[in-house]
């Protein structure tokens, strides 16, 4: 049997292969495995419908945020169009399901592929544009996609929206929060695993090289433009995949949610969670989703109790304000995001209770 490694105080590697592992110790691997078992066995049972709904939304947002992190955090191409790509995935999934009667398990990855293609098209400006200029080009993409979703009525039914059929998987119909919980989190695990693998092979290394120094990356034989497009494609695939699951989960979709605000939210998830950190994307998605719910709840409280009657309308922008404020705080005090906070906590417990 393989020797187990549990001692982070003396991590003595005995071969190059050991340096390729995801978890440094078997303790980490076991901890993650156990928490996954707990997640799947306990959470759907003990959570009420609202909590489970929020958890599901976190799962979906995490998939999309991982995608955006690959583009923004690893490749250094800041995009303000991720919300629109999420919408493209939602609509692609809905159209596959209604117009083409494609089953759920085919529609979702196909929606991802369609979105990847469209993401690649909107990534073409990256051949010439860098930094802020590229960000503005993706912002234009956001508005173009929003416009097309609203106005291409033969395909998207415009403002009427689309009602999706029930999702079925292997003859079992997926209904309600619990069924979707399993679908969403199994997808999240798979997509996380794929993202981690991409990042530890030559593709991920090329992305990071392009982010850090594109001239040197080119000197390493990396075709920069092709790899930027690949990053756009992967990132949009994740957005589209998440969007399609979301569409099935919501049952009916309209064009409204996929606006610039959503793109900003995704960017906030990546920045707050930790740029260039896959796990950070999940932290960020959790943080922003929960923050969103708290703010929504606060707005409701204000409106219903009438403490501040007449100011409902001026309360609404508080959400954006709170987002902006948290992003600024993170950039100022912990630019590496929640992932770094988590690392610090973990390492201070590393040798607990015998730490130096």
């Amino acid at each position, binding site marked *: 049997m393989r020797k187990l490694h549990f001692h982070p105080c003396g991590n003595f590697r005995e071969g190059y292969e050991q340096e390729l592992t995801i978890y440094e110790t078997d303790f980490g691997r076991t901890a993650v495995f156990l928490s996954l078992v707990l997640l799947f066995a306990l959470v759907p049972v003990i959570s009420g419908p609202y909590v489970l709904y929020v958890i599901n939304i976190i799962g979906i947002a995490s998939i999309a945020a991982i995608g955006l992190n690959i583009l923004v955090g690893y490749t250094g191409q800041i995009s303000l169009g991720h919300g629109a790509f999420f919408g493209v995935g939602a609509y692609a999934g809905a159209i596959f399901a209604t117009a083409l009667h494609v089953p759920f398990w085919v529609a979702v990855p196909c929606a991802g592929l369609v979105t990847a293609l469209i993401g690649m098209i909107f990534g073409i400006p990256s051949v010439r544009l860098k930094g802020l200029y590229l960000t503005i080009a993706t912002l234009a993409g956001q508005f173009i996609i929003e416009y097309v979703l609203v106005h291409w009525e033969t395909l998207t039914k415009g403002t009427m929206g689309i009602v999706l059929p029930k999702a079925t998987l292997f003859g079992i119909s997926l209904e309600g929060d619990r069924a979707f919980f399993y679908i969403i989190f199994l997808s999240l695990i798979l997509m996380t695993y794929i993202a981690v693998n991409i990042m530890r092979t030559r*593709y991920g290394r090329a992305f990071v090289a392009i982010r*850090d120094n594109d001239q040197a990356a080119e000197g*390493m*034989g990396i075709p920069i433009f092709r790899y930027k497009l690949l990053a756009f494609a992967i990132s949009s695939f994740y957005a589209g995949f998440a969007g399609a699951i979301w569409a099935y989960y919501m049952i009916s979709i309209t064009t409204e949610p996929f606006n610039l605000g959503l793109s900003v939210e995704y960017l906030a998830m990546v920045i707050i969670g930790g740029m260039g950190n896959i796990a950070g994307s999940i932290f960020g998605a959790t943080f922003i989703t929960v923050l969103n719910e708290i703010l929504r709840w606060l707005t409701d409280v204000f409106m219903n109790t009438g403490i501040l009657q007449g100011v409902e309308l001026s309360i609404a922008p508080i959400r954006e304000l709170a987002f902006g404020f948290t992003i600024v705080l993170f950039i100022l005090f912990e630019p590496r995001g929640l992932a770094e906070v988590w690392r610090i906590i973990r390492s201070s417990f590393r040798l607990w209770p015998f730490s130096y």
Partner: protein
Amino acid sequence: MKSLRGRPSIFSTAKQEQKTADLEVARLSLSFGGVMALSEIDMSVHAGELFAVIGPNGAGKTSLLNCITGYYRPQSGKIFFNNEDITYLPPHELVRRGIGRTFQNIELFPGMTVLSNMLLARHIHCEYGFGFASLFTPSVRREEVAHRHILEELIDFLEMQPIRNQLVGSLPYGLRKRVELGRALALEPNILILDEPFAGMNLEEKEDMVRFLVELNEGWKQTMILVEHDMSIVMSISKRIMVLNFGEKLAEGTVDDIQDNTEVIKAYLGDESTL
């Protein structure tokens, strides 16, 4: 010269014999606005040579290397590598054809470790595709381990064992130059192009670097183009030398030819009549 540390497998005799490296530059001209950085340069480098390019500051040495490696597009002239016209190919294509280089101002990734920097050079030698990579199949793992072996051999050769996991940004200048050489070697180039690899080094670091370059060229037949200001080094290790001055080719020949050339002495010391 006998190697004590053993020859890295990427320089095995069999591998070196397969590496063809015939570079032909014909009437190459490049100008920036009114400045003629290069005018009608002819040059040829053959397999196994250590070819040096020297000249005063602003002579056009870096510009010439940038044309050969695809970073600059010359206005006229042609560059052939192994009988293929490579004049307008982009840098990443040239790397795949076996042209590896280091930069005068060091273009490493300061936020990465020495190993990660060198691992990037293995990009073109990775054979696995996207699907396999996304599942990290055993074949991908095997390949990654094989690349790691190659890098460790190079790290041994360049005596960089203690710094392999350090961030490049934290290393002193002289060591960075060595890391950049290691990374260029990890590309397994047919022709290795070095732009001032000795700049900013102290004597000891220079001696180490000379040792590496001599072993590479004389021991393992690595073809090289070397741009360098330190005349004592250039004169002692290169086989052929080309002298540039204000973008023009002043002279070309063996070490003895160049040392006796009055034009060259003038270019370096100034016209004696004006003294």
